[in-house]
């Protein structure tokens, strides 16, 4: 692609590998741009951007309450982000983390209510979380099996299944007197709470051990992708399914395993949200788009498991700071808008990692070369 500008010509060419500088500068510039756009919007609507941004940093990061709050919100995002990383690494587009997360919450709250206090804390918690992961994996299998054997587009099937999961959860609480619903609350339905022994232990303030589990799984996924035969096969299949076939790998089984691992991670995230924060199946708190956000988080992390953590924390800090802004008279909804703009800017910035722009002086008069193709 060429573009003539006066006596200079801009040439865009794809580059195989971006230098360290570019890899650092591109996202930094993107983030800065997003905040500038956000500031302009705030100014245009008569708000003070400096005040808003200061408050966002204060309420997002400064102080024990701020940082623990942010980390609590980041925990489920880390899980759905990891879920997307695993699938997207193999170019299998699981956009069903939302539904897998929800079903994980349904299953683990169900198991929690079922075991009650009969098996004690640790065993009960493990059962809950395993149930969550299992439910997520099986729900993902609903899309994975047709993808592996009928070649049904997984983008659409995983997307649609999100809303099936949402419907199931809403039905259990709002539209039926199910096992999950608190029978004492007829007018304003809520989920039954699990026994206190089944809640995840807390570390600092309300910050529960879910974060530690999330970090542990980040390490596990990083290790599995990098240091196991399975990870090697995922990498090869993602780059070239044909080369994978010729070297004797089973591509269909890889699709199944990758989608189910991805679903299990999202489901585990749902289970941990129940065990660590909610204590019951709460549709209002579980349908905030954690799965969709996780996909963007993974993309911004360039599909690196460790990259997911800082991106998730940054996004979570926005949500955590929102109520604080409201107190100052700035609409808290600005954080969602800012989040969206940030996503778009960083996604656009990734382009600079793949392409280099060179400015060349042209020998001839301006515009002599046709700016074609």
């Amino acid at each position, binding site marked *: 692609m060429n573009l003539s500008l006066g006596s200079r010509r801009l040439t865009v060419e*794809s580059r195989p590998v971006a230098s360290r500088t570019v890899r650092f500068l591109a996202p930094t510039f993107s983030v800065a741009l997003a905040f500038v756009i956000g500031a302009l919007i705030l100014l245009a609507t008569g708000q003070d951007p400096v005040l808003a941004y200061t408050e966002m940093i204060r309420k997002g990061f400064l102080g024990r309450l701020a940082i623990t709050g942010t980390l609590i919100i980041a925990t489920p995002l880390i899980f759905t982000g990891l879920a997307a990383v695993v699938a997207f690494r193999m170019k299998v587009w699981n956009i069903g983390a939302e539904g897998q997360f929800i079903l994980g919450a349904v299953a683990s709250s169900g198991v929690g209510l079922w075991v009650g206090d009969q098996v004690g804390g640790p065993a009960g918690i493990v059962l809950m979380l395993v149930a969550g992961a299992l439910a997520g994996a099986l729900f993902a299998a609903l899309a994975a099996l047709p993808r592996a054997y*009928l070649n*049904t*587009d997984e983008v659409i099937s995983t997307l*649609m299944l999100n*809303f099936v999961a949402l419907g199931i959860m809403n039905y259990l609480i709002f539209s039926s007197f199910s096992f999950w619903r608190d029978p004492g609350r007829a007018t304003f339905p809520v989920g039954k709470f699990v026994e206190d022994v089944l809640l995840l232990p807390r570390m600092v303030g309300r910050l529960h051990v879910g974060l530690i589990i999330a970090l542990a799984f980040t390490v596990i996924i990083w290790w599995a992708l990098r240091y196991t035969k399975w990870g090697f096969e995922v990498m090869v299949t993602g780059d070239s399914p044909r080369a994978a076939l010729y070297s004797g790998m089973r591509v269909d089984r890889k699709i199944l395993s990758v989608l189910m691992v991805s679903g299990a991670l999202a489901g585990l995230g749902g289970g941990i949200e129940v065990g660590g924060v909610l204590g019951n199946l709460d549709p209002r708190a579980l349908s905030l788009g954690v799965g969709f956000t996780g996909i963007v988080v993974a993309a911004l992390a360039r599909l690196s498991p460790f990259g997911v953590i800082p991106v998730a924390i940054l996004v979570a800090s926005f949500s955590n700071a929102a109520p604080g802004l409201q107190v100052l008279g700035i*609409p808290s*909804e*600005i954080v969602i808008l800012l989040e969206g703009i940030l996503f778009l800017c960083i996604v656009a910035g990734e*382009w600079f990692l793949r392409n280099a722009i060179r400015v060349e002086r042209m020998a001839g008069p301006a515009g002599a070369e046709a700016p074609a193709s």
Partner: protein
Amino acid sequence: MNESVLLLSLASAVVIGTPILLAGLGEMMTEHSGVMNLGIEGMLLGGGVVGFWMSTQQASLPLAMAVGAVVGALFALIHAYLAVTLRVNQIVSGLALVVTGTGFASFVGSLNDSALIYSRPVSKFEPVFGEAMRDLPLVGPLVLGHDWVVYMSWVLVAVAAFWLFRTRAGLAVRAVGEDPATADTVGISVGLTRYVYTMIGGAGAGMGGTYLMAGIFSTYQHGISAGLGWIAFALVIFAGWRPWRALVAAYVFGALRNLGFSLQIVGVDIPPDVLNVFPFFLTIVALMIISARPAAARRFSAPSALSVPYSRETR
């Protein structure tokens, strides 16, 4: 009495199906050019909130709809730039657009102490035909009882069907969505086509959002779309990328949205949460049936180059 309840709920299925149809028809045009835009929910809310604001500000309803369409198209322009020019992953770009549009709508709705939430449109969408015609049995409530947006959506379906399948321009778009390299060799600009049709998709979503807020609910609330954009996305697949099928499917989806209430009256108890799942469930089933049968897949599956970025170098 049961009959009239059923009739009324069918009539309101047409009403609630209309924003689904407008947004879905737009997405259908976008997808026929080979671009997948998951951001319908965002464009619907973003375009709709501005359209609704116009309707509360003395603007005529057609003007409000037009402004909603333009704003929706501008949101879509972001996606077009990312997906067509920068060739980024269309899933990621679309989802980012959902967040942006939702955030934009919520932010606009919260300005000045949520003034917009307490505002109402200055005028209403009135039925087009006189009372005498609306009172006709059956056709009255079902066909003749609607406002102009419903009839416009019918016209748009006809125009879309004719445009896509009976004109050279439609042939060109479909060629771009099926086989951009071949389209390129006969001199069709792949990039320009994809920009234009992506923006048409945004316009459809913006109109749908405006009608939802200014027409159906006469109010703005956060999250008012309640997943309507996603249903519109499902609609395109369920309709097999065909406009006339989309018309029918939109009303089926619309009916499922409020059938629970009327079914309860006639003694059948299906909870609304179950009915809400049906559009998505039906779409999965349709998708699997189609992918299992190659002959059907050829006719009713996605454009071959859907969500695949095009560049001449990699031809």
